[in-house]
């Protein structure tokens, strides 16, 4: 922290001098601030303060809890995350109306209305359970008569099941593919295993959190979970490469990787967070759901990369050093 505060006036001064004397942009030994702590003011976490065991224990407890949550949901609904209409079948209707949810319940009392979601701009998201074709036609006609600007989406139960199977296959293949790439890249078991474990924990924790927060598993959120595989390994790979393939002291390498990695995740959180806010205000459910899942996942990624993966890598390097 101190180092950095001193540097900035120095840099300003040098830049000013450059302008005056037409000297080049940077002095030869220009140093960027390189503190050990994450200095963005949100949290301070010293990646070198704890032993590997301390680093790994909390995420592992979280992972266990998450697996229990997924197992429980699986036992009660047959899927690890509550399926949305994409997978369970049903009808979703987005309308803009000033009517209250209770009034809407009255309007659609003849149909299997499951839930009414409310947003600003008077947007309402109505979810209906599966119904037969004549009911469906009647519903579609009713909706388009009363609310000409309604968005209607309907998925048949059997089609939902097909989508479900395909999505499951996609997730499994993605994960296997990622594992292969990681193992090919590092060719040593422990570091590769740590990256894969971290990605796995990321997905599991995010999926569990979806159950807790009440985000359904739909096509967009499945895509977001897959995207997390990519995001999650990003900082893990940086960490592993820096620690294993670079010369220098372990502590310094870890701190350096941490510093870069945090910024990486922060920029992504910034981009996704902005998307989240705008789509929340703007009622774009598809993107909002993707953004929510990515946001949750990125926070878990911080946990799974820095304590977990860094802890395993530290343990691995220390152990290797002893031999």
């Amino acid at each position, binding site marked *: 922290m101190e180092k950095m505060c001193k540097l900035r006036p120095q*840099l300003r001064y040098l830049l000013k001098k450059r302008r005056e004397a037409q000297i*080049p*942009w*940077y002095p*030869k030994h*220009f*140093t*960027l601030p390189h503190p050990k702590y994450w200095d*963005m003011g949100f949290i301070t976490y010293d990646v070198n303060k704890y032993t590997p065991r301390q680093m790994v224990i909390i995420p592992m407890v979280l992972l266990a809890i998450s697996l229990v949550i997924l197992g429980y949901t699986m036992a009660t609904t047959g899927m690890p995350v509550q399926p949305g209409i994409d997978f369970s079948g049903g009808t979703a209707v987005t309308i803009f109306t000033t009517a209250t949810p209770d009034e809407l319940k009255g309007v659609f009392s003849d149909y299997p209305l499951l839930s009414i979601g409310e947003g600003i701009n008077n947007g309402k998201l109505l979810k209906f359970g599966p119904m037969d074709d004549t009911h469906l036609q009647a519903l579609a006609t009713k909706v*388009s008569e009363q609310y*000409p*600007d*309604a*968005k*209607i*989406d*309907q*998925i*048949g139960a*059997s*089609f939902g099941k097909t*989508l479900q199977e395909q999505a499951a296959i*996609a997730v499994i293949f*993605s994960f296997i*593919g990622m594992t*292969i*790439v990681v193992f090919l890249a590092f060719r040593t078991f422990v570091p590769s295993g740590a990256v894969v474990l971290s990605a796995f924990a990321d997905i599991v924790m995010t999926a569990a959190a979806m159950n807790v927060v009440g985000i359904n598993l739909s*096509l*967009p959120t*499945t*895509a977001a979970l*897959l*995207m997390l*595989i*990519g*995001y999650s390994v*990003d900082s893990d*790979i*940086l960490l592993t490469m820096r620690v294993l393939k670079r010369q220098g002291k372990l502590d310094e390498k870890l701190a*350096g990787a941490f*510093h*870069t990695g945090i*910024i*990486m995740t*922060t*920029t992504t959180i*910034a*981009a*996704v*967070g902005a*998307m989240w*806010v*705008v789509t929340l205000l*703007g009622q*774009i459910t*598809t*993107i909002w759901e*993707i*953004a929510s899942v*990515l946001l949750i996942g990125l926070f878990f990624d911080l946990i799974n990369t820095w304590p977990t993966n860094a802890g395993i890598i530290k343990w691995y390097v220390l152990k290797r050093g002893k031999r």
Partner: protein
Amino acid sequence: MSKLTAILKHWQVALVLILVIGSIIAIYPHFENGQLKTNIQFGLDLQTGTWLQMEFKAEVAGFQTDKQVDQFIADLRKQLDAEVYQVADNKLEIRKDYSREDLEKAFTAAGGTLTTYEKGVSRNTADEVKRVLENKLNALGTRDARVNPLIGLNGISHYVRVELAGVSLSQAKEIVGKQGKFEIRIHTTGNQTDHVLYGDSITSVGVPSHEPAGSTTWGVSFTLSDDGSTKFQQAAIAAGAVNDPEKHYLDMLLDEKVVYSAPLSADLASSLVREPVRQLYASTGAGDSGLEAARNLEVHLRAGALPVDVAVSGSGFVPAALSDYFKVMCVIAFIAAAFAVGAVIYYRYREPAIVLPMMATNLSEIVILLGIATFIQQLDLASIAGLIAVLGTGVDQLVIITDEILHEGRVPSPTLYTKRLTRALGIILISASTVVIAMLPLALMDLSTLRGFAIITILGVVIGVAITRPAYGEIIKEILSK
């Protein structure tokens, strides 16, 4: 200034510039009637329209039999009262909705056993359906219609997805949702009509044309099967139409509604007396109205030719007001994301000389991505989320390069610089490959709406690794060195 020319001299940077300019030309933003228009194709949720997902009411079943295969299929046809075709060595396509149990019984009764059972049709049949539907839709002048059979990895297609821009849900269902039943009837006495043939006797349908060639009269030619032409001849003779065509009009009905009605022409009547005629022509009149009528008739003639029954299994509709609103919101979300990213990296580096090239590189990546997307991919809501995600990962990787190069805080010598850039690109390459691999199943599997998301993400990562990241490496080197 000299710095700028030095940067531009690197071919990596020049390439990015050329691609950005090319992409802007491809996107072609321009004003039309005060509205901003571009060449970017929008998916259904960003443009008014309807999507329908339809299930094929058919099965592909594996079989084993000791009998002659042809004989077995013939027996099976009788058992099932359905069209049965051999689609592979040991696979049959049954074009009717049957449960596994029912098929098993029928297979046993026909002298064989059922080995596998899958709902859907073979790839060829799916392609045929696609062709028929496309013809039907294009002829109706639907502005933008897409028909995509979702073919599984095993080559069996269970669903076909149809997207129709500018059409309401009920219209769309009317156009494609149900299979038309086509029939030709002949007037006998008074208002009585007799059945002549069904649509299955029509083997091919031509496009609207002039007959005789060079005249102004429009019409559609169609061909009957041998069986159909015999039926046609017999019916015309039986009703007396060959002798007095004007009194015995022929009606074409689609779903019990008369879509075309006309008498036999004199020369057709006289040739029918002698022999069956396979090649027929239905004229619809002259001028634009004749052409319009001919187009509709063509669709109607084809309506009976969809080889398999379909049932709507999913559908959706986006109204015009909502799609425009979505578009505006997406642009806002994108700008907000760009600013948020810019703010974070400014906070980190506090140096415009680093932040500006970073943002410029990142945005040029998005422009190139959009430029390429105009040719190959519709943008829907999910792919726009992918686009914003690319913005996030893009900056991530630029951060890796910057930090790697500035490692230990000093601007390195050229040799060390190259070494570090290579190392940074190595890290980026691995993480990029994992993203590509993770997205590949989605891009290949055609999970309807997720495909765009996967393709945009993969494309963004590839453009980043191959084109813009190396360019950024050169830019930052020039800026940091003296």
